């Protein structure tokens, strides 16, 4: 595996691990999701650039547009959570439940 390929594969799995083992805030999990989208963007760009086939260069831009949609939906959920529970700490969701 080449160095660039390994760097992007390992970064993708590392941010995926950061999403799985979230700690306190919902926003830090959303940031790990954004990091995964960034790595996907770079990988798609490099795929076309390294193989010198730049016809697919529009693919990463469409990915960026859909990633913006996903980020805004996640942030709207964060705002709704901050409105009802006062903060985005995930333990607050089950605090007053029996």
């Amino acid at each position, binding site marked *: 595996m080449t160095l660039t390929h390994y760097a992007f594969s390992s970064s993708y799995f590392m941010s995926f691990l950061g999403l799985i083992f979230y700690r306190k805030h919902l926003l830090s999990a959303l940031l790990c999701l954004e990091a995964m989208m960034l790595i996907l963007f770079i990988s798609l760009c490099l795929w*076309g650039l390294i193989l010198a086939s730049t016809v697919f260069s529009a693919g990463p831009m469409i990915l960026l547009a859909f990633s913006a949609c996903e980020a805004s939906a996640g942030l709207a959920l964060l705002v709704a959570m901050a409105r009802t529970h006062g903060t985005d700490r995930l333990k607050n969701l089950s605090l007053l439940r029996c």
Partner: protein
Amino acid sequence: MVYMTYLLLIGLVLGLAAVASNPSPYFAALGLVTVAGMSCGILVGYGGSFLSLILFLIYLGGMLVVFAYSAALASEPYPEGWGSWPVSTLMLAYVLLVVCVSVFFSGGWFEGSWVTVDEFSEFALFRGDSGGIALMYSSGGGILMLGGWVLLLTLFVVLELTRGLSRGTLRAV
């Protein structure tokens, strides 16, 4: 040139370990900005200068600014940076994991092509990635329309989620 790309790749992995170790969102957003900057440098190193510009403008200047403003919702009196014990342990664990797994994948480590994308072609006004993105407006017009429609729908999704007054999707908001 190869050394610069190598350094940027190391910075990318370390910056993502800093984000994945889940510090307070202020610091995680800073780590993500650093990672985006490093990856823009890597894209330029491979010859995709227009894609790097798109990443800087749209991703850093659009999406991450919104994330930085939303970090105000995650305010706490003592934000945890990378000096606190759980965060630094997680970051060290992630870096060690990447280094140890690289032992198994080190076959062909330096065999990739480090040449920029238009190095061996003639002089042209339309460089590789700019010419490729121009196809989004001609042959890819359908996906362009679909992307615009999806963005408009997302606006309505966000407005509906945060509508409030107990008439939206989440009744208690």
